[in-house]
């Protein structure tokens, strides 16, 4: 079982963004979670959303087996797909992982 925790900073229940941003980010999160289920052997996932006036910072962090960043991460995490989605939004993605210490995916999307 995967325990998903959602944490948010700087936004409330009524915070909304344009439809493209919301839809693409939703799909990105969906894809990341699917990847975690498929590959990570994680028990916990943290989805964290931080918003300020200009940016949305999305973090998806798991406590799974992680991977060696020197490996071909693009193939492994469907990064191309995610990068394609983010390019629509003018956003960026970075990965951090260590073997047996989980994986953190950090996505920045401009909102202003």
């Amino acid at each position, binding site marked *: 079982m995967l325990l998903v*925790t*959602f*944490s*948010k*900073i*700087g*936004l*409330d229940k009524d915070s909304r963004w344009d439809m493209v941003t919301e839809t693409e980010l939703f799909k990105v999160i969906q894809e990341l979670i699917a990847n975690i289920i498929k590959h990570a052997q994680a028990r916990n996932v*943290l989805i*964290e959303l*931080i918003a*300020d006036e200009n940016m949305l*910072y999305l*973090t998806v*962090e798991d406590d799974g087996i992680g991977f060696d*960043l*020197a490996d071909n991460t693009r193939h492994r995490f469907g990064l191309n797909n995610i990068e394609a989605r983010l390019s629509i939004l003018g956003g*960026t993605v*970075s*990965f*951090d992982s260590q073997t047996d*210490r989980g994986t*953190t995916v*950090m996505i*920045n999307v401009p909102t202003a």
Partner: protein
Amino acid sequence: MFPQHSAMITIIILDDHQLFIDGIVHSFSNDPEIAVTGFALDGSSGLAMIGEKLPDVVLLDIDFSKTRENGVDILKSIRKLPQSPKVVVLTGHCEASLIEQLQREGANGYRLKNIDMGELRQTILDVYSGEMVFKYDSKLANENRNLFFDTPPILSDRAVEIIRLLSQGFIVKEIAHKLGIAETTVNDHLERTKRKLGAKNNAELVYLAGKSGVI
């Protein structure tokens, strides 16, 4: 004093203020749906009572000044019980990092103590039916971000590692090299951590992290 109410939503109150407990007990004394089946003025006896009475919902305070207990720790202990109830945190503290921590530790609700009895009642009903009820003034919570009460902000091990290296005088490029990650990755960690701690720049981040005992 507390009769069995098998068909009702049973609640237990953990709060170190007797008057506050009395008020809730009194106002639910004739409630058709909610029955207070117990209360405790400290965490350890509260935990024992929860384990014994198996309430549906626990109303949990954060500050137990007399026993120096913390509601977040009590919540963690509640979550380790074999039959863990729904937990609504009732506190005077409106602070973003506390709220985030409560969400992470599996609280089902968070309300400030300035709500009225009707709102409390509705919160209990909503949480009992499976909803998450976190209501607070997010602006106030963010303003209070740096007022650490008992709960330090939640930072990943990696974030702490990076702040520690910053505090030792390493620059981003060196940190990236040391950890075998990209510079943008280091910066992504830093941007997030700065926002969590309310720091304007890396220097303030190191200062705040040191002050709050994170590094």
